[in-house]
C-alpha cells in the first residue's frame, strides 16, 4: 500500500518552568493513500500535538520534538528548512481547526482568507484567487457571493465550511482534521462530516481525523489509532478495533458510550483520571485505571505487538495466551 504519511518513534516534550511535560512518547503510524485514519483518545492524550508535529508547528519554546521521523511523500518534515516548511504547509498538508469561531480572522472577508492560501502557493493574481475562493465556497455549499462577508456575518456551521474551503483550496494530499465537529451542534455535525467525507473521496486525499467521538470515527474512518497518555495503545482497521477490540482502554471507551439498541443498559465509566503527563507511571500508563491490571503491568511498559492482520495492541496481559477482555471473549 502506498503511504502518504509515515511517523516513526515520534517523541515530543514540553519543557515548562514546572517540569517536563511528556506529551508524545514514541508513536508510530502511517496513513495510506486515500485512507482516513482516526486518532482517538481523551483530552490531553497528545492528539493535537501529533497533528501540530506533522506541520512542524509545535510551539517552540516550550515544545521540543526530541526524536523520531515524520516522512511525508518521501521527505522528512523534521529536517526541512523553514522555506520548504512554508511551502509544504497548506500545499501538501492542510489543517481544519477545532473551533471555527476563532479559526477565522474577524477583520478579513472570508473570500480573501481562502484566496490568501491560493495566492501564496499557486502564484495566482488576486482576481483569479478570488474566483477560486468563490468556487471553493460553492464546493462547500455556500453561495459564492458570500465571499465578501466577514466571519461574524456567517453562522457557526458556515464558518466551519469556510475553514474547510481554506484547507482544501490548494488540493493538499493530506488533510488533518482536528476535532472538526466538536464546536458544532449535532445536526450541523452530521452535515459537516458528510461534506468532509465527500470532498476527501472526490479529491482522492488522505485524512488524519482527530476526535474523541467514536461515532465520528465509525462514520468516516478506514483505520483507527487509540491514543493514551502520549502512546498508541491499539491500532488497526476500523473493523478490527470496533468489532475485535483488544485493549482494555478501548473497551472502556466503548463501555462509556450509550447503546441505542439497549437503552436501559448502565454506562460503565473508566474510573480515575488520565495520568499527569509530568509524572507518568512507571509501567503501562493505563495500569492505574485498568480493571485487568496485574502487578507486572505497574512495572513493565508494554510494546505495540501485532496480533493479526493489521491489528496491533500494546497490553502486557496478552503475554498470557488465555487473556481475554470482556467485550471480545474470542480474542480475535
Amino acid at each position, binding site marked *: 500500500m502506498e503511504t502518504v504519511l509515515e511517523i516513526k518513534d515520534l517523541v515530543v516534550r514540553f519543557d515548562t518552568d514546572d517540569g517536563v511535560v511528556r506529551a508524545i512518547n514514541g508513536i508510530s503510524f502511517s496513513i495510506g493513500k486515500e485512507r482516513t485514519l482516526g486518532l482517538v483518545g481523551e483530552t490531553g492524550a497528545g492528539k493535537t500535538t501529533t497533528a501540530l508535529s506533522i506541520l512542524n*508547528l509545535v510551539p517552540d*519554546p516550550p515544545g521540543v520534538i526530541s526524536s523520531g521521523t515524520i516522512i511525508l511523500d518521501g521527505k522528512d518534515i523534521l529536517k526541512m528548512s523553514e522555506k520548504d516548511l*512554508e511551502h509544504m504547509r497548506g500545499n501538501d498538508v492542510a489543517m481544519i*481547526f477545532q473551533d471555527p469561531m*476563532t479559526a477565522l480572522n474577524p477583520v478579513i*472577508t472570508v473570500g480573501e482568507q481562502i484566496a*490568501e492560501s491560493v495566492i501564496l502557493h499557486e502564484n495566482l493574481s488576486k482576481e483569479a484567487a478570488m474566483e477560486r475562493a468563490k468556487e471553493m465556497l460553492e464546493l462547500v455549499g455556500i453561495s459564492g*457571493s458570500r465571499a465578501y462577508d466577514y466571519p461574524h456575518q456567517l453562522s457557526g456551521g458556515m464558518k466551519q465550511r469556510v475553514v474547510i474551503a481554506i484547507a482544501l483550496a490548494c488540493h493538499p494530499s493530506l488533510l488533518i482534521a482536528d476535532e472538526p465537529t466538536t464546536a458544532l451542534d449535532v445536526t450541523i455535525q452530521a452535515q459537516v462530516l458528510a461534506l468532509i467525507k465527500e470532498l476527501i473521496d472526490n479529491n482522492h486525499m488522505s485524512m488524519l481525523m482527530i476526535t474523541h467521538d467514536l461515532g465520528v470515527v465509525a462514520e468516516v474512518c478506514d483505520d483507527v489509532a487509540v491514543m493514551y497518555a502520549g502512546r498508541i495503545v491499539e491500532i488497526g482497521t476500523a473493523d478490527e478495533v470496533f468489532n475485535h477490540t483488544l485493549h482494555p482502554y478501548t473497551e472502556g471507551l466503548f463501555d462509556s458510550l450509550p447503546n441505542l439498541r439497549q437503552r436501559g443498559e448502565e454506562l460503565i465509566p473508566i474510573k480515575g483520571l488520565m495520568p499527569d503527563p509530568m509524572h507518568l507511571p512507571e509501567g503501562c500508563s493505563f495500569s492505574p485505571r485498568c480493571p485487568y491490571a496485574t502487578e507486572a503491568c505497574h512495572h513493565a511498559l508494554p510494546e505495540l505487538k501485532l496480533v493479526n492482520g493489521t491489528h496491533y495492541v500494546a497490553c502486557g496481559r496478552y503475554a498470557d495466551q488465555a487473556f481475554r477482555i470482556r467485550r471480545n471473549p474470542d480474542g480475535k
Partner: protein
Amino acid sequence: MGLFNKQKKDGTEMIGRSMGQETWRRLKKNKGAMMGIAFLVLLLIGTALATIFYDYDKDIIGMTRDRFLAPSWQHLFGTDNMGRDIFARVIYGAKYSLFISFGSTLLGLIVGLALGAVAGYYGGLVDNIIMRLTDIFYSIPYIMIAVVVVSILGTSMSSLLFAMALGTFCNFARIGRASVMTVRDQEFVEAGRAIGLPTWKIILRHILPNCLSAIIVQTTLKVGSNIISASSLSFLGVGITPPTPEWGAMLSDGRSYIRSSGWMCLFPGLAIMLTVLALNLLGDGLRDAMDPKLKR
C-alpha cells in the same frame, strides 16, 4: 448589521459593510468627535489658503510700524512687537505645528509599532531586549532627549521631528506589544501558519489589523500631545526658532509683553489649546466608535 443594506444596485452582488464604514457610521453620531473633525478640517483649509494668499516675507515675517495694536476688525488678533498681524501668523503657523506633530507621531508609530509587534510576537529574549531599550527612552523626559538631539544635529525642522519621534516611539512600542500579545495566541494565527504564511505576513495581515482600534486611538491622542511638545520645545528655543510663526515660538515672543499686550500670547495659546482639544475629542470618539462592546 449589514444584512439589510448590502444589496448593490444591480441586486446581484452582496457586499458586507467594512469596519471603516461601520466606524464612520457610529462616529457621525458623536457630536464632540464631529466638532473636532470640523475644527481640524477648517484649520487645514485655513492654513492651506494662508500659504497661498499671504506673502511669507512681507505678511508673516516683515516688520511694519503698526506695533502692539489691540484686536480690531483691521487686525482680528491684533499685532505683535514687530507690527505683524497675529491672525495671519497663527493661521499660517498651523502648518508647522500640524506637520511636526503628525510627522513625528507617524515616524514614532512606524518604528514603535514594528518594534512592539516583533517583541510581542516572539516574546522571550527578543521581547526583553526591545522592551528594556524602550524603557530607557521612556524614563528620560522627552525635553532632555530633544535638547540632546537638537544640540547634536542643530536646530532644524528635521532634527525636531527626529527628536520628537524618539520620545514617541516607546509609547507605540508598548501599545503594539500589548495588543499583539492579546491576538498572537488566537487560533486564526495558528491557522495562518498552517497554510504556510511567512511570519511577517502573519504579523502584517492577521495580527496588526486586529489591533488597529487601540493604535488609531492612541495615534490621535498622541498627535495632540505632540503639538504641545513641539510648542514647548519652540518656547524653550530648542525647536523652531523665530521668526518662523510656530505657535510655541510665538508664545515665547509674547512672553515679554504679556502685561501690556496679552493678545500676543492669548491667540497662539488658544490655537494650541483648541487644536489639542479637537484631536482629543476625535480620539475619544474613535475609541467609542471602534469598541465593539459599545455597539448599539
